[in-house]
């Protein structure tokens, strides 16, 4: 088992280096450096430009900058944002709980709705419900997040007035951030009104971000269930005279869940990617919105650090899923 884990971890290292290198290079391929995007019509005198470039270390050859950066990263130093002059790591840590809270709820939403929908669709294969679920999930999967978010805002927030348009908390409340998770912080502060307000603010972004994973979970559950339902042992269980619910809930679902759990693990990447758009629409102060602004301002350290930390999160989750999977299913462990 230890060997299995070590092999998995060693595979993470090249991915980590690759991500660092690609982000480093890609943002530098975008025309305009951090100084030039700030300058307006007036332009900047060449000597001043050189001076500022020198201060930011942008006048050194690329490989030199990259090695410096990697050196810093290995010592746990992600650098300082060129815009706010705060440490990239501390900015990330301030904003990440908001993204995590949203992503966790979106995943919960996707699982709680997607799993039963997939099961029922499989059991009632070919029925109107089945076609409905499959049709809706295909639509959900193809829905552009931006458009979907605006549509929900216009309908529920502006039209019906049921949910707030954007933000994390009603402006009447001010809760000092402790963990950064609004639901937890409001409870810790004993502000129940604020807790409800935070929950209220989570509904629409959660639905928007959870839509794609929901579609994936529903479809995956359905196909896994269909496969399992055709197995001999299910027929045997039925022949033994077991109740239908027991066959599906106990015998079929357990086995069908294995691929579904993997898919849920893989959705972490999709969720964090989708968070970038969702956060922009809902003015959600998480890392997604922060990354977009970093691109616009060519804030190299913030962008590189942010992408790296997100990639690390995704890799860690995938690693955990892999290990867990190995624990659950010994065949995987031995085949590597």
């Amino acid at each position, binding site marked *: 088992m230890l060997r299995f884990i070590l092999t998995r971890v060693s595979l993470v290292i090249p991915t980590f280096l690759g991500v660092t290198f690609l982000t480093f290079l890609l943002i530098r391929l975008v*025309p*305009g*450096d951090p100084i*030039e*995007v*700030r*300058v*307006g*019509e*007036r*332009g900047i005198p*060449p000597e*001043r430009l050189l001076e*500022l470039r020198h*201060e930011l270390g942008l006048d050194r050859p690329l490989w030199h900058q990259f090695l410096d950066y990697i050196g810093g990263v290995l010592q746990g130093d992600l650098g300082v944002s*060129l*815009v*706010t*002059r705060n440490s990239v790591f501390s*900015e990330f840590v*301030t*904003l990440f709980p908001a993204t995590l809270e949203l992503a966790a709820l979106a995943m919960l939403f996707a699982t709680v709705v997607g799993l039963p929908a997939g099961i029922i669709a499989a059991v009632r294969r070919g029925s109107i419900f089945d076609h409905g679920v499959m049709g809706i999930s295909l639509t959900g999967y193809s829905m552009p997040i931006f458009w979907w978010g*605006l549509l929900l*805002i*216009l309908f529920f*927030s*502006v039209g019906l*007035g*049921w*949910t*707030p*348009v*954007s*933000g*994390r908390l*009603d*402006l*009447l*409340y*001010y809760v000092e*951030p402790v963990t950064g998770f609004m639901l937890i912080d409001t409870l810790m502060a004993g502000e*129940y*009104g604020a807790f*409800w*307000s935070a*929950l*209220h603010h989570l*509904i629409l972004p959660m639905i928007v971000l959870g839509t794609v994973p929901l579609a994936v979970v529903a479809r995956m559950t359905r196909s896994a269930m269909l496969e399992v339902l055709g197995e001999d042992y299910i027929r045997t269980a039925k022949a033994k005279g077991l109740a239908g619910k027991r066959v599906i809930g106990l015998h079929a679902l357990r086995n069908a869940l294995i691929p579904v759990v993997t898919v849920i693990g893989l959705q972490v990447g999709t969720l964090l990617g989708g968070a970038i758009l969702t956060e*922009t*629409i*809902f*003015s959600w*102060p*998480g890392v997604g*919105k*922060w990354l*977009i*602004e970093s691109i616009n301002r060519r804030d190299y350290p913030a962008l590189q650090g942010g992408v790296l930390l997100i990639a690390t999160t995704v890799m860690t989750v995938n690693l955990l899923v892999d290990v867990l999977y190995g624990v659950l299913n010994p065949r995987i462990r031995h085949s590597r």
Partner: protein
Amino acid sequence: MKRILLGAGLGVAATLALAAPAQAAKTLVYCSEGSPENFNPMVNTTGTSFDVSLPVYNNLVQFERGGTKVVPGLAETWEVSEDGLTYTFHLRKGAKWHSSNDFKPTRDANADDVLWSFNRQWKKDHPFHKVSGGAYDYFNDMAMPDLLKSIEKIDDYTVKFTLNKVEAPFIANLAMPFAAIQSAEYADALQKKNQIDKIDQAPIGTGPFQFVAYQKDAVIRYKAFEQYWGGKAPLDNLVFAITPDAAVRYAKLKAGECHIVPYPNPADLEAMKKDAAINLMEQEGLNVGYLAFNVTKKPFDDVRVRRALNMAIDKKAVVDAVYQGAGVPAKNPIPPTMWSYNKEIEDYPYDPERAKKLLAEAGFPDGFETDLWAMPVQRPYNPNAKRMAEMMQADLAKVGIKAKVVQYEWGEYRKRLQAGEHQMGMLGWTGDNGDPDNFLHVLLGCEAARPGGSNIAKWCYKEFDDLVVQAKRTTDIAARTKLYEQAQVIFKEEAPWLTVAHSVVHMAVSKNVVDYKMDPFGIHRFYGVDLKQ
């Protein structure tokens, strides 16, 4: 699901219950478009970051609310010496500093603070010079290092600025956001605690609103400063809810989650006009978008060609299509909201036939080939340069001119235009200090016509230049107005540019908001604004 809805209902009930006692306090919510870099206008260049620091700070002098006129700020009065080189400011007594959990001021604002604030930007060995990046772009752009000879404290409430040369717009420069006054005492306290970065993160000022808290990328909170020297603001609290998407800002305004919304989508303007709960305000921006003819290159060295092009392009059609109601055709190089704008000037009419005749006279009966440079980015004075270039191209083809549209990456584009590589190039300008000098001398003077200078027509015309240089050396506004009016006449005759448009800026304001005034500089100010209860 039932439980969730019930929960949501409870949430609303709780919010309302809390809202009831809080109703006495007036809180204005402004849905701002982005996050600030920090809270110091000295080191920033964007409107977004000026907006968040203006409530907190005062300058020696400031622009009147909704205008470009300079009025007293922390300086109650000032006088200029006969030779125009010395400015003596008499500071207001009893201007209080804000306090916070970390800092309790022991004295009022005085000359030490003024010296401290200017020296921070000016002197490289100042202990705070490097804080927040230390790039004082505006201080440098307004040529302060060349202009300032010395700043002296005469007594606690008198400061004397001595200049190296006469510069009439100097007073207007001091009203720009970068010239804010920070507290020297606060700086000392932070230095002792080894927390100098905090000066720009947790600002202490003398302004009408006191900074309370900033939740990164989400909310900025201020409360009215009770002891403000100008009297407490009618509002009690001011909140910036950071909302980057324009469609979402509009949705928040409709749902009553904010009171004032900047930068609406042009596509939403019609609906906003019809909405009875919204007051859609508009104002010509302090800007101009133009097409410059490089007069150092043939055939644009011939004034007849430049005039012909002014008549060959259907300006109104271009402005209607590109600005979609958010722009007005421009006839002068300065915007109509600026003092000395010459109303008497008549623009060239759209007349392709006369254009053809003029071109024939100039020796181009069959037209010619040229390039037409267009910005690759959206700018406040031109939302879509590419589209504008294509429309101009079509109009020019009608008089026989074949124009090739050229685009570069923004930084490269600006650099090449300033070097004078183009024949025809689009650009524009947004005013910094509300002074005509900031347009006429900076964009059209001989000094700026050098390679690398911002006069991209490379037009150096002695008669014009004499007028704007003389106006720079005159401190009397009435005399300056005459000089600038005359300069605009010459500009129109010589036609180094095709003046295209001044953009129109819109603000969507809830009907509950009382006395919000749009600012010609495009900055958003909230002192003096009130809410109906």
